[in-house]
């Protein structure tokens, strides 16, 4: 249990600071340079991203686990109606993942937008305008893809991420995005009062600032393993071992 919590904590820290979505993985650059002119706007955008990324993570985790991955519960059951169970268990729908994710993201964004607009007009005023922009924000899809790779890409099914980890990664990433974009907006408001050479005004100087920021954030490299080392009791090397049956081919 403790180790699970530590894991969650480190995933969150990792996504937010160490491997910041924007500054390390380069996702969500378009809004990062586009919507970072004012602190308030940037913060609104960040909140909207956190919100949507969480929803998208839940949906994509569920779809991947229950429908897409080989031997997933739903597809196996449905296919089992037509073919023998062994074959059904091998059916792999991961090829659909991209299309399904983007479909899920865009429709959930839209649904949320309509819902909020109807029932929480003040919230819509504050947040709603950013929602549509998010559909084409790489960060969301990126989070889904990472989650997918942690479910289908692992060597053994026991390591597959559960919903908690998936959600933490997504929310951590969203928070990381918010941190980056708010810092950027603060700096850009400051830069409005500076004498930046003309060709660099606007996006070019923002990218350079992002470069220096990313340089600064490189300082966090290794914080996660440092924290893990500090928090985890050293694993015993002597181990109780059982051989397993050969994995079927």
């Amino acid at each position, binding site marked *: 249990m403790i180790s699970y919590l530590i894991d969650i904590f480190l995933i969150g820290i990792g996504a937010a600071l160490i491997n910041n979505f924007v500054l390390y993985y380069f996702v969500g650059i378009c809004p990062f340079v586009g919507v970072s002119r004012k602190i308030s706007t940037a913060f609104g955008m960040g909140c909207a991203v956190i919100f949507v990324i969480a929803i998208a993570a839940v949906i994509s985790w569920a779809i991947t686990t229950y429908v897409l991955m080989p031997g997933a519960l739903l597809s196996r059951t449905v296919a089992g109606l037509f073919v023998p169970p062994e074959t059904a268990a091998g059916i792999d729908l991961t090829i659909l993942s991209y299309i399904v994710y983007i479909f899920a993201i865009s429709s959930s964004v839209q649904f949320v937008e309509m819902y909020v607009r109807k029932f929480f007009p003040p919230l819509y005023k504050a947040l709603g305008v950013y929602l549509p922009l998010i559909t084409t924000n790489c960060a969301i899809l990126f989070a889904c893809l990472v989650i997918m790779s942690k479910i289908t890409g692992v060597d053994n099914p026991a390591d597959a991420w559960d919903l908690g980890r998936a959600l933490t990664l997504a929310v951590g990433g969203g928070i990381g995005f918010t941190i980056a974009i708010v810092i950027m907006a603060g700096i850009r*408001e400051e830069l*409005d*009062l500076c*004498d930046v050479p003309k060709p660099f005004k606007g996006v070019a100087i923002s990218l350079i600032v992002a470069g220096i920021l990313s340089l600064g954030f490189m300082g966090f490299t290794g914080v996660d393993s440092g924290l893990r080392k500090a928090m985890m009791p050293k694993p015993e090397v002597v181990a109780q071992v059982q051989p397993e049956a050969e994995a079927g081919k």
Partner: protein
Amino acid sequence: MGLKFKGFGGSGSFPHGVHPPERKNFSGAAVIEVIPSPGQVLLPLLQNVGAPAKTSVKAKSEVKMGDKIADAGGFVSAPLHAPIAGKVGKTGVCTLTNGRHVPAMPIRAEGEQIEGKELWEKIFGGQWPKNADKYSPKEIVDAIQAAGIVGLGGAAFPTHVKYVPNEEKPIDTVLINGCECEPYLTSDYRMMLEVPDPIICGSLLLAKASGAKDVIIGVEDNKPEAVEVLKKAAAGTGIQIAVLPTKYPQGSEKQLILAVTGREVPLGGLPLDVGVAVSNVSTTAAIAGAVVKGNPLTHRVVSVTGAGVQTPKNLLVPFGISIGELIEACGGLTKDATRMVAGGPMMGFAFSDMNSPVTKGTSGITILTHEDLKKEDETSCVRCGRCVDVCPMNLVPTKIAMASRHRDTELAQQYNIMACFECGSCAYICPANLPLVQLVRTGKAEVIAAGKK
């Protein structure tokens, strides 16, 4: 400073502020002289904060000294009186030292003039009662209004407006401002030394008019002689003398009130809001003259000082006299004079036109030399925060200035641009030599323009 401060609500000082060189020695020892009556005066019709005055005499009419020549243009306005006897000319225009371009009425001297000793007697001479029992508040305020008295401390705000009785905001303290925190200037100092009686008398009248219990005269501790004289003059009247540490801008009313009473005038508010009224010592003397003797405000004491003038002096001059004549009376400029400032060097206005007239707000003429003005070139702001450390209003001048330079009125307002009273502490201290005050002023103009839209 704590010790000197027994009996007052405030701590004796205010946060931040600067210590510019005082340089009071130029004219500090010079006894007030009465300037010879000029051949002509040019009276600008706008000499006060508020509405301009309206001429009430026709061109070519003859006037005697003290005759009213213009009526107040509204409640926040003051009438004008002829400072000399003569013939009114055709109304023209003139540019004041603060840059305003206003209509002005010339009076050519004709006939007998009251001059010299006689003038001094008329204005300051005689007995000054040490109580105000004879007068009712209304009488006092009416006399002030009729005499055209405006603040002589620099702001030129019509004085009667401050003292009209106000039910909702009663005044409990009258503060008489004898700080004269501006470097160089000594007119208030000389007034306190030479004619303390009208000051005391005027203070009592003001207390009576406003119904205040306390009357406090605030003087900076670099004028010990003035404190002594005032103490003696005030003996038995209940007037207290608060000796304040020397720090610029101690004389600014918000800072003075904070230092003496410990009250903070709210942003955008008036001293009235905290039950205080502030007047300058010279104003007080003029009030005494108006109430006791019925003298209208026609003359004032002006220090002509600085290393750029041959013999620095304190002069009693009629309004409307050209500044050139004042400088002549002091022997003219020295060769290395480079900047003429109406007012003190911290808040005064540089001007170039010797024909500009003296107005009610002109408390001094400071002539600075090349040596005084030596400073490095302007660099960009290095964000050292020193301006923040000295701003007596606790603002962030650099941000305000930069916002103003980039025409970002919204940002400027976030940083409370309108709270700045342009004391100049920030620009004085700024290592980058940025014209911070000028930028703040342009920014304010822009905010006002944006607000009007």
